């Protein structure tokens, strides 16, 4: 009997269903569970209230990232509430026997950076975390998505959550990407086409030449932002690029276990003729460096374009006007030349070494603009070490930039890294919601190249004009 052609998503999902409930969710088994200080304390409290244990402590990994300071990490954390959450993560991890990479640990960093770089994230896994950008790990051909705190409690106590199977979306991008166009631009472009809710209810597979030729770090950037079009997650079939990235990492399989794993991973691809609920095709030639002008990630355009009118965008005119008013922008404004105040490079979206290499490629031989405050925040201590080893640190310092210590930082501004009210920030992070980077802050999402171009000119600048 021949099997029905299946998608990559079907193969991984179906292999993890413990029980199907009629007219209800699937009981879904979780291979890897990441926790951090903000969304886990109440889950542990729930365990205590119900007198439950952690079922498989070796499948959960804890790191502190969301509210950690990015300077003076060797000193006690000043904010008592943040300090309390960090302490709770440490205490709960110790109590239940969970691996914990807290502040000061050489492996500490943003959860979605440290998972892959230590070989914890592998193809074919199911991965969850109380953080919507867990979708990042889909770059490895894993099903990875964010969950709420009640579900964190479920995974801790039973290694399962209850999930209806999402519908399947295929996004193909073929062709060659142009000069100055990065993975961030590819995903911002897709979100702008689909809108911030366009993939709600779906799980995405990204396919086509652009993703095949993309590095693992680029694929992580793309999958990371799947949630910004409403999808639970996005994934890319593992290939030689994936295997080469994983091989030799600390927690990756070794020796015979590697060979067994590799044989399985090579089966993780969508069969010819497998059906998707919806398919979108895009041409790489249409994608230029992107920037957002509004208050959700779907409000993005090519950097050389003008802000569209409410009529062109469609939807609620009042909501659109509210958004532009918050940003201090107007319909038909050009983005190029807009004065900016802050630049943030970092986050689980663009806080890996390739992002800092890209940033440095434009900064090299130039100076930080006087009107710009720049926060340069590596995604982990390992990334920070690479920045120093590769000489990027020297390029940054010579140009007048300072390197901070790892953490989520100004992406969500839970620590002191807040953009002041009314100020404009070109940010490599993932969300431009009102107040996301601090009360009243105005965020322009962009790639590390666009951020670098803004950092050295003080205004929104097309990075293609600065690339030799």
């Amino acid at each position: 009997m021949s099997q029905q052609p299946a998608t990559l998503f079907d193969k991984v999902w179906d292999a993890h269903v413990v029980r199907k409930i009629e007219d209800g969710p699937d009981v879904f088994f979780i291979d890897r569970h990441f926790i951090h200080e903000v969304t886990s304390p109440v889950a542990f409290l729930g365990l205590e209230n119900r007198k439950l244990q952690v079922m498989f402590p070796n499948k959960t990994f804890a790191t502190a990232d969301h509210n950690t300071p990015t300077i003076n990490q060797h000193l006690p954390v000043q904010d008592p509430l943040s300090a309390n959450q960090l302490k709770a993560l440490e205490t709960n991890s110790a109590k239940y026997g969970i691996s914990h990479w807290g502040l000061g640990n050489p492996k500490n960093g943003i959860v979605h950076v440290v998972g892959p770089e230590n070989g914890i994230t592998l193809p074919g896994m199911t991965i969850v975390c109380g953080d919507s950008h867990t979708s990042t790990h889909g770059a490895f051909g894993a099903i990875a998505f964010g969950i709420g705190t009640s579900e964190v409690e479920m995974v801790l106590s039973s290694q399962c959550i209850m999930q209806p199977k999402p519908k399947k979306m295929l996004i193909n991008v073929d062709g060659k990407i142009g000069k100055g166009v990065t993975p961030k631009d590819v995903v911002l472009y897709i979100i702008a086409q689909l809108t911030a809710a366009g993939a709600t209810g779906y799980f995405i597979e990204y396919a086509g030449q652009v993703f095949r030729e993309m590095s693992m770090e680029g694929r992580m950037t793309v999958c990371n932002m799947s949630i910004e079009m409403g999808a639970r997650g996005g994934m890319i079939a593992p290939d030689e690029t994936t295997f080469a990235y994983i091989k030799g990492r600390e927690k990756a399989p070794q020796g015979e276990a590697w060979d067994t794993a590799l044989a399985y991973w090579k089966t993780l691809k969508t069969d010819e003729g497998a059906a998707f609920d919806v398919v979108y095709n895009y041409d790489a030639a249409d994608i230029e460096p992107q920037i957002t002008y509004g208050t959700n990630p779907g409000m993005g355009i090519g950097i050389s374009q003008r802000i569209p009118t409410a009529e062109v965008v469609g939807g609620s005119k009042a909501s659109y006007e509210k958004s532009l008013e918050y940003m201090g922008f107007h319909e038909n404004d050009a983005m190029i030349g807009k004065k900016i105040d802050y630049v943030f490079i970092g986050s689980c979206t663009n806080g890996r070494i390739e992002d800092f290499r890209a940033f440095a490629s434009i900064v090299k031989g130039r100076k930080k603009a006087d009107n710009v405050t720049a926060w340069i925040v590596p995604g982990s201590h390992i990334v920070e070490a690479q920045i120093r080893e590769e000489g990027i640190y020297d390029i940054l310092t010579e140009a007048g930039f300072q390197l901070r210590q790892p953490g989520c930082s100004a992406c969500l501004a839970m620590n002191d890294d807040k953009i002041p009210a009314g100020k404009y920030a070109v940010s490599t992070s993932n969300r431009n919601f009102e107040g996301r980077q601090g009360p009243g802050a105005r965020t322009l999402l962009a790639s590390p190249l666009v951020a670098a171009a803004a950092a050295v000119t003080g205004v929104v600048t097309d990075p293609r004009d600065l690339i030799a």
Partner: protein
Amino acid sequence: MAYDKFTVLTSTAVPLPIENVDTDQIIPARFLKATERKGFGDNLFRDWRYNNDNTPKQDFVLNNPIYSGKILVAGKNFGSGSSREHAAWAVYDYGFRCVVSSFFADIFKNNSLNIGILPVQVSPAFLDKIFRAVEADPKAEITVNLEQQSITIAATGESESFDINSYKKHNLMNGYDDIDYLQAMKDEIRVFADKSKY
């Protein structure tokens, strides 16, 4: 987390006719620092509700005494963005038991169901009718009947049905949650885990 059973809710409604209300608006990140689940309602819609000096913004609906009730009615794509369950906790802690919209973000919908808030997805046309009814009379009552899966505007009698899977419906009507369910099948999970590749 045990919660109250949800059967029939008749209440006035609070209208928030804004689209794409993300969880950073529902509860900004700087208010996520508690290690216990309490008090989040005070910071629901914090930056829309209060000025920087903590005085209420008079033009925001939660500060308008003519609107109150246990039903929040919001524009499409409510709850997008972050997975923070704190957003659902804030909605619940403020006193809402039901959120009505023409479209919900997935994670917010899951989180709501997990803590006993009923998300009711209606057609865009019916959402407009509710907004119009509440605008015409802030004391207009809405009835949400989970058993019958219906939502009705009392003043006009206009009604629409809504979807919910029978598992979640049963849970909400009885005050059960997923943790109860999963604890009852741990042997089956253990057998599954033994065969797991990772």
